[in-house]
C-alpha cells in the first residue's frame, strides 16, 4: 500500500470554487499519478485556469481538498514547477536567459549578494536539459517564442520539482516550435509528472496519457484505454469537435 500511496502526486477531492457566488468549479475529483502526462482541456471560462490557481495555492480553497504527495497544499513552488501563460510579455526587459532561470531557485538557499557558483552551475545544467545552454547569456527578448518558452521551462525545473505544470505552453509559438516543446515535455516526463493546460487537442493527444475535460465539472479519461476503443493513433480520421464533445460528455 505504501508504494501505491507514493504514486499519487496530486489528489483532489470534492473541490468546488466560486467567484462572487458564481460557481466555476463543482465537485472536482482527480487523482494524478507519478509520471502521468495529463492534459486539462475545456472551453474558455470553463475553469481550467481557476483549477491551476487552486493547485498552485494562488486561490484559496473554499470547499474540498487538494493534497500534494499526501500533504495539504502549501503556497509555494517547492513541489511544483510552474510555467505561466503569456511568456511573451516584457520582451524589452534587459535580462539574460540564465538570470530568468535563476529566479526559480529556492529563496532560502540564495547568496546574500549576487549568485552562488552552485546556483549558476545548476542553472546551466537545467538549461542543458531544455537544450538552451548556448543561449544562457543572450537577452531574453532576442530569443524566439519557442526558445523563450524553453527558458521558462528551465526556470520551473530549477527547484527540481516532481511535478511540472504548464499553462497553455504553446499559444504564441509556430508549429515547429510547438512540436519541439512537446517532444521536450515527453523527454522530461520520463522522470517527472507533467500537467499541461491546453485547448489545442490535436497536438496534445499525441503526447498525453490522461485527459481531464473541465467545464465546471471534470470528466476524466485514460487515453491508453480510449485508444483501444477509437484507435486514436490514426487521429487524422477523427473530427476534433466531435472528440471534444465526447470527452466532455462521458468519463472513462
Amino acid at each position, binding site marked *: 500500500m505504501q508504494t501505491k500511496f507514493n504514486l499519487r502526486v496530486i489528489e483532489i477531492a470534492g473541490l468546488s470554487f466560486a467567484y462572487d457566488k458564481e460557481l466555476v468549479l463543482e465537485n472536482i475529483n482527480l487523482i494524478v499519478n507519478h509520471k502521468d502526462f495529463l492534459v486539462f482541456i475545456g472551453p474558455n471560462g470553463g475553469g481550467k485556469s481557476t483549477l491551476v490557481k487552486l493547485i*498552485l495555492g*494562488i486561490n484559496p480553497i473554499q470547499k474540498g481538498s487538494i493534497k500534494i504527495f499526501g500533504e495539504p497544499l502549501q*503556497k*509555494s*513552488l517547492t513541489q511544483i514547477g*510552474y510555467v*505561466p501563460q503569456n511568456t511573451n510579455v*516584457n520582451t*524589452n*526587459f*534587459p*535580462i*539574460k536567459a540564465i*538570470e*530568468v532561470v*535563476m*529566479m*526559480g531557485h529556492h*529563496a532560502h538557499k*540564495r547568496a*546574500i*549578494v*549576487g*549568485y552562488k557558483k552552485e546556483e549558476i552551475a545548476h542553472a546551466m545544467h537545467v538549461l542543458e536539459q531544455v537544450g538552451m545552454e548556448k543561449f544562457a*547569456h*543572450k*537577452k531574453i527578448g532576442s530569443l524566439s517564442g519557442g526558445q523563450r518558452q524553453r527558458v521558462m521551462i528551465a*526556470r520551473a525545473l530549477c527547484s527540481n520539482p516532481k511535478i511540472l505544470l504548464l499553462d497553455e505552453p504553446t499559444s504564441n509559438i509556430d508549429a515547429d516550435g510547438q512540436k519541439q516543446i512537446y517532444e521536450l515535455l515527453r523527454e522530461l516526463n520520463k522522470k517527472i509528472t507533467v500537467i499541461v493546460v491546453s485547448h489545442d487537442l490535436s497536438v496534445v493527444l499525441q503526447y498525453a496519457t490522461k485527459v481531464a475535460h473541465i467545464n465546471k465539472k471534470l470528466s476524466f479519461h485514460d487515453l491508453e484505454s480510449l485508444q483501444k476503443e477509437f484507435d486514436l493513433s490514426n487521429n487524422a480520421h477523427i473530427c476534433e469537435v466531435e472528440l471534444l464533445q465526447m470527452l466532455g460528455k462521458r468519463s472513462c
Partner: protein
Amino acid sequence: MLEALSYEFIQNAIIAGILVSLVCGIIGSLIVVNRMVFLAGGIAHAAYGGIGIAIFAGFSIFLGTTLFAVVTALIMAFVTIKQRENIDTFIGLIWAVGMAIGIILVDLTPGYNVDLMSYLFGSILAVNREDLYFMGALFTIIVFVMTFWYRDILSVSYDSEYAALSGINVNFFYTLILILSALTVVIAIKVVGLILVIALLTIPIYIAQTISSSLYVMMIISGLAASVFTITGLWLSYSFDLTSGASIILVSAAALTVFMIIHRLR
C-alpha cells in the same frame, strides 16, 4: 571656464549633478522597466503640494517636499495595489490635486517671495552642503538596497506573478521602489525642477535599455550617461547664461536623437 571650478557653488553643482544623475540612472531604470513613468510623473508634480505646505507653515522646503512626496508614493502604492482598474485616472487625480494644494497654499502665504521658477525648472547652482549630504545619503541607501535585494527587485520587476509564487513579498518591493522614486524625485527637483524630472528619469534610461542585456548594466550605463548630460548641460548653462535644468534636458534630448540615428544606421 577653468577658474569657474574654484567657486564653491560650481563645485557643489557638479557633485550634486553627478550624484543625482547616478541616482536617476538606478531608479529611472526601475521606473522604466516597471512601467511606472506616469506614476513617477504624478509623484513629481504632486510634490509641489509639499513645497506649498512648507512655505505656508514656514518649515524647511526640502523636508516638506520629502514628506509630501513619500506620502504621495504610499498613496500611489496603495491605490495601484488595491485598485488595479482606473489606475491612470487616480494617478492623474493625485498629480493635479497635489499641484493645486501647493498653488493655493502659496497664494495664502502673506509676503511670499520665494522664486517659484526654481522649483519648476531647478536651481542646481543654489545647491548647498546640506543638500549634498542628503543626496549622498540617498545614493548610499539606494546602492545598499540594490546590492542586497537585487534579485528580489529583479524578480518583481520582470515577472511579479512568478515572484509572488516563489514567496517574494511583491507589494513590499513595489512600495519600496515607489518610495525610492519619490526620494529621487525630491533631489532631482533641485537639479532640473519638477517639470523636467521625468526627462532625466527616462532619456538616459532609454539609451541604456537599448544596449544593455542586464538590469544592473542598464542602471550603470544610465547613471553614466545622465552624468555626462548633466555636466554638459551645466557647462552650457554657465557659459551662455541659460536655465540649467532646461539645458540639461535639451543636451539629453540631442544625445538621444544622435543615438537613435546611429542605432538605426547600424
